[in-house]
């Protein structure tokens, strides 16, 4: 890998129109939120010759896959493969806190150049801000786009016509449901979710459920994440997009009208009508909604792909299933970018290529993340690195451990959930 580490393009936008949060950090460099985090990761230094030395420092949010930390495992695999080269050794720095705290920390660290991060794992929603501020390098213009990345996922790396990152792991809203709960209410498998389901179908099913004498007072049709945090933004944008309302164009210009906003809000209100949704949804995040679903308090759940793996230990196999979310679903995920001031950009790019290779993406899927490459889904990709695979939890198809707490029927008063609350924190996009 002999690419130069030069920052290309983007010089015209650097320094212009810095978002408020970035400016806040510029003016408050001494504050903890802007200094690159507690513990003070020692900067590798920017002195002469730093580019020849390691390690390649990767800053990322906490890996919470519950699978032995697949990101850490992938980096260890890279290190084993470059065992003879000190300059190519990589180190993962995990940032504490929620998504917004991580964003502030990364912004501050990159603005001040104090943390020495070479690679940053950015939530897809942060790409325009970091690109516009000149904090991450565009992918070299002469580097061909890897067509194996799912197109819509690749597009999350773009800002104003240039790609700034490679997609590491993605995410998308899905509809989970409880076949056992539905059958108990007389809804046969032939009337359960299909790929063609619309919100009309979902609402009809929820209505049938509500009429069932077997459903309790504390039970409802569905739930989702409506607490005041990023999960609410995701759910609102899904309702807006389903109603045909877009808020901004590709370049970030606001495009909606007041009438369109009302249309989008009315769609969200219809979905969240008190006869349909669990009342606690308005204060629920990913963990709480998963617990409500596992306890049988709802038959339907909008959630992220990691829940498919998480449910395996919470419910018997015939008690949950998943399909497309009716209407339009929103993408999540993280992209890997090279910091503009990294003195070892060539090695950083090589590491990113490794972390987003077919093998690594297969490992990520096996660990419960959604992979970013099409080949991983049509089984034409190369297998997960064997030594990484060995550290991951048993594959989804493997025999299940004997289940505990497995109600044959949906519990009347949802006992199981309390014990599961707080247990699963997956690689989802929004964080409380």
């Amino acid at each position, binding site marked *: 890998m002999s690419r130069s580490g030069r920052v290309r393009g983007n010089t015209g936008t650097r320094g212009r129109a810095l*978002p408020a949060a970035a400016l806040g950090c510029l003016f408050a460099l001494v504050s903890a939120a802007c200094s690159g985090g507690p513990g003070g990761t020692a900067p590798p230094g920017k002195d002469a010759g730093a580019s020849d030395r390691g390690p390649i420092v990767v800053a990322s949010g906490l890996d919470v896959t519950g699978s032995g930390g697949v990101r850490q495992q992938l980096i260890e695999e890279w290190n084993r493969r470059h065992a003879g080269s000190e300059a190519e050794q990589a180190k993962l720095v995990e940032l504490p806190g929620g998504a917004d705290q991580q964003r502030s920390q990364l912004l501050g660290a990159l603005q001040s150049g104090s943390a020495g991060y070479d690679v940053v794992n950015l939530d897809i*929603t942060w790409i325009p801000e970091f690109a516009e501020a000149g904090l991450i390098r565009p992918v070299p213009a002469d580097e061909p786009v890897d067509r194996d990345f799912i*197109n819509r996922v690749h597009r999350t790396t773009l800002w104003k016509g240039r790609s700034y990152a490679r997609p590491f792991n993605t995410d*998308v809203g899905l509809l989970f449901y409880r076949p056992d709960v539905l059958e108990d209410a007389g809804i046969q498998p032939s009337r359960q979710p299909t790929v063609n389901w619309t919100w009309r179908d979902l609402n009809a099913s929820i209505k049938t459920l509500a009429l069932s004498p077997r459903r309790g007072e504390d039970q409802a049709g569905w739930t989702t994440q409506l607490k005041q*945090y990023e999960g*609410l933004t995701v759910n609102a944008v899904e309702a807006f997009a389903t109603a045909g309302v877009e808020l901004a164009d590709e370049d970030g210009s*606001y495009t909606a009208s007041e009438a369109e906003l009302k249309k989008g809000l009315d769609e969200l209100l219809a979905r969240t009508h008190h006869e349909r949704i669990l009342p606690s949804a*308005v204060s629920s995040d990913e963990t709480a909604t998963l617990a409500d679903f596992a306890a049988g308090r709802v038959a339907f759940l909008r959630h992220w792909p990691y829940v498919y793996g998480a449910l395996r230990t919470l419910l018997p196999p015939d008690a949950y299933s998943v399909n497309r979310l009716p209407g339009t679903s*929103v993408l999540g995920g993280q992209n890997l970018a090279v910091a503009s001031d990294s003195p070892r950009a060539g090695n950083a790019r090589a590491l990113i290529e490794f972390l987003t290779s077919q093998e690594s993406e297969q490992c990520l899927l096996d660990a419960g993340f959604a992979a970013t490459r099409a080949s991983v*889904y049509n089984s034409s990709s190369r297998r997960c690195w064997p030594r990484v695979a060995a550290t991951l939890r048993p594959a989804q198809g493997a025999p299940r451990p004997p289940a505990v707490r497995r109600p044959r029927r949906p519990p009347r008063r949802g006992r199981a959930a309390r014990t599961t609350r707080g247990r699963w924190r997956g690689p989802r996009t929004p964080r409380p």
Partner: protein
Amino acid sequence: MARAAYTQTLSRALNEAVQRPRTPYYGAFTQVLQSHVHALLAAESPDSAAVAARLHRDLRDAFEGK
């Protein structure tokens, strides 16, 4: 549900999904949207027209970095 069926579902969903708004002011955008939408959902008798008017004004500012 077989794992193969799950990965097919996931693949299909990824090929149809949309992004949240793309803007350098994402932090401001998401705060504005969350606060107005949460107030609407928590209201006794939600007035979507009134919230749409306020949301429109604040989103316009947020996307302009104001």
